[in-house]
């Protein structure tokens, strides 16, 4: 590590002490299950906004997607557009206010519980919980990997030690302090992330001669686009890929739409709307959430491509080549190579904060899902704090084991997988639950099942990035994708979400027809 170890140790210890103090505060305020599960429904709007943003934006967005934008260019700015337009404006105004109101009205304690109570169906609660418990450990493991990899690169700590130590610290305050501890620490971590990303943007443009000069230099690198990427449609780092080319399809369907739409139905985010007492808190949170998400994603997708200019000027190679071909290492390498010592520490903390805030929320969501929604011992909907804490511990262990099994370059892809499955399974049924006076349980069952199933089939048999790893298509049909290009690069969400929505609408139409026929004399 380039920075002074003593300085780094002191600042990190201060940060960890602050996190533990906030975790302790959450522990002291947690008097019962309501506090542990929905933070007593009285969270401050600033804490809501920062917690939502810090949970939404993980190391995945900064390290994973920042690295991908270093490889594919600034086109990912369209993900920023969706993250603000859908992830903040739509999520808070269209979904957040209704979620909060129904959460209060039904007394729901978790996302599956909310769906189950809206539909008055245990099946809906269980199937939603099942999807969360199956898919969330992959995303959680990716977040763990991102944090551990940065600790390994920056501190020269062995990867295994970094991974386990990182999981253990977060586990401590999640298990003891519940959602209050999670959201308080999220807020602190959100502030650190905001500072870190702001300084990163400013210093990058200062180093590269200003906004116009740096962007023009990036534009001028277009002739250096590697042959394989150029053949797949890449035109440069400051320009969009060729329309409908494989890279365009991957960027738009997988990265932009997969994540940008997927954010709507993420259980760990939706549950946050149930933690505030009124809509005024949500209105005020929007004001903070928008600028926060702009700075997190916008900076990552701007600095990522610009690292190419810096590495070309300094080393004569492109960023991904400088990082040994691993896109997940581009941002950490750039920080360690280009930034002043003090900023390395600040950014190290920002990345740790990003990983910890997302991890803590995922640990909490998985724990409450298995300890409450899927717990057969829960009677009359009354949760057991001990069972939820044990469930949280179990899911932390599972996620850590999964982290060891996942391959390299997985951070961004695991994010897309999780968000795609959530979107395809939940968005239509969730929307129907929120906006229908008498939501149809059978329509929701069909929609969730059709969404999850079609997402899985497309992932396993068509979308090459995943199907080639899973190996099912190859084993059964002898090819990684059963459909010709360009279908192999079209993300499952583009297929599965419309199927899920269509299934819901068709079922509703059939039921309406039946009612009309039954009403006739």
């Amino acid at each position, binding site marked *: 590590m380039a920075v002074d170890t003593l300085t780094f140790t002191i600042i990190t210890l201060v940060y960890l002490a602050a996190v533990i103090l906030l975790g302790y505060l959450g522990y002291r305020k947690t008097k019962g299950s309501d506090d542990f599960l929905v933070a007593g429904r009285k969270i401050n709007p600033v804490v809501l906004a920062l917690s939502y943003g810090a949970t939404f934006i993980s190391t995945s967005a900064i390290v994973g997607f920042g690295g991908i934008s270093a490889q594919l260019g600034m086109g990912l700015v369209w993900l*920023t*557009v969706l993250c603000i337009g859908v992830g903040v404006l739509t999520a808070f105004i269209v979904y957040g206010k209704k979620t909060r109101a129904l959460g*209060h009205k039904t007394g729901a304690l978790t996302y599956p519980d909310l769906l189950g109570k809206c539909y008055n169906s245990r099946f809906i609660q269980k199937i939603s919980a099942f999807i969360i418990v199956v898919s969330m450990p992959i995303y959680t493991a990716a977040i763990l990997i991102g944090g551990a990899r940065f600790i390994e690169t920056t501190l020269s700590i062995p990867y295994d030690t970094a991974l386990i130590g990182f999981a253990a610290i977060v586990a401590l305050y999640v298990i003891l302090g519940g959602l209050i501890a999670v959201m308080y620490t999220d807020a602190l971590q959100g502030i650190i992330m905001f500072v870190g990303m702001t300084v990163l943007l400013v210093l990058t443009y200062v180093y590269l001669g200003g906004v116009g000069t740096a962007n023009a230099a990036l*534009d001028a690198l277009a002739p250096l686009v590697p042959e394989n990427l150029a053949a797949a449609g890449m035109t440069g780092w400051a320009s969009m890929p060729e329309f409908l080319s494989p890279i365009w399809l991957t960027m738009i369907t997988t990265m932009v739409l997969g994540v940008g739409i997927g954010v709507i139905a993420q259980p760990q985010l939706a549950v946050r709307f149930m933690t505030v007492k009124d809509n005024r808190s949500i209105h005020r949170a929007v004001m903070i959430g928008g600028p926060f998400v702009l700075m997190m994603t916008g900076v990552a997708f701007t600095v990522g491509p610009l690292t190419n200019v810096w590495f070309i000027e300094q080393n004569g190679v492109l960023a991904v080549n400088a990082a040994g071909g691993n896109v997940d290492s581009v941002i950490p390498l750039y920080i360690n190579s280009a930034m002043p010592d003090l900023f390395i520490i600040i950014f190290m903390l920002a990345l740790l904060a990003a990983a910890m805030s997302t991890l803590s929320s995922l640990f909490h969501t998985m724990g409450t899902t298995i300890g409450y929604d899927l717990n057969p011992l829960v009677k009359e909907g009354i949760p057991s704090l001990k069972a939820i804490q044990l469930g949280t511990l179990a899911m932390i262990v599972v996620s850590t084991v999964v982290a060891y099994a996942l391959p390299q370059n997985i951070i961004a892809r695991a994010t897309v997988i999780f968000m795609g499955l959530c979107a395809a399974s939940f968005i239509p049924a969730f929307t129907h639950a929120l906006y229908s006076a008498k939501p149809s349980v059978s329509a929701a069952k069909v929609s969730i099942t059709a969404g999850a199933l079609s997402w899985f089939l497309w992932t396993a048999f068509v979308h090459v990035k995943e199907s080639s790893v899973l190996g099912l298509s190859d084993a059964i049909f002898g090819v990684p994708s059963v459909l010709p290009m360009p279908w192999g690069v079209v993300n499952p969400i583009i297929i599965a979400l419309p199927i899920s929505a269509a299934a819901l609408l068709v079922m509703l139409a059939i039921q309406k027809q039946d009612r009309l026929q039954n009403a006739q004399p």
Partner: protein
Amino acid sequence: MFGISDPGIWIGYLLSFLLTAGCIAYGIINWKNGCNEGSEDGS
């Protein structure tokens, strides 16, 4: 615009800034609305 020649990119940046401004405006306009709505309608 600002050294970026492809409209596909700078329009994306422009929209990001406009949406962020929209978030801020929404928060300011509704600063006092929705107090103590409890479990009433979420609109």
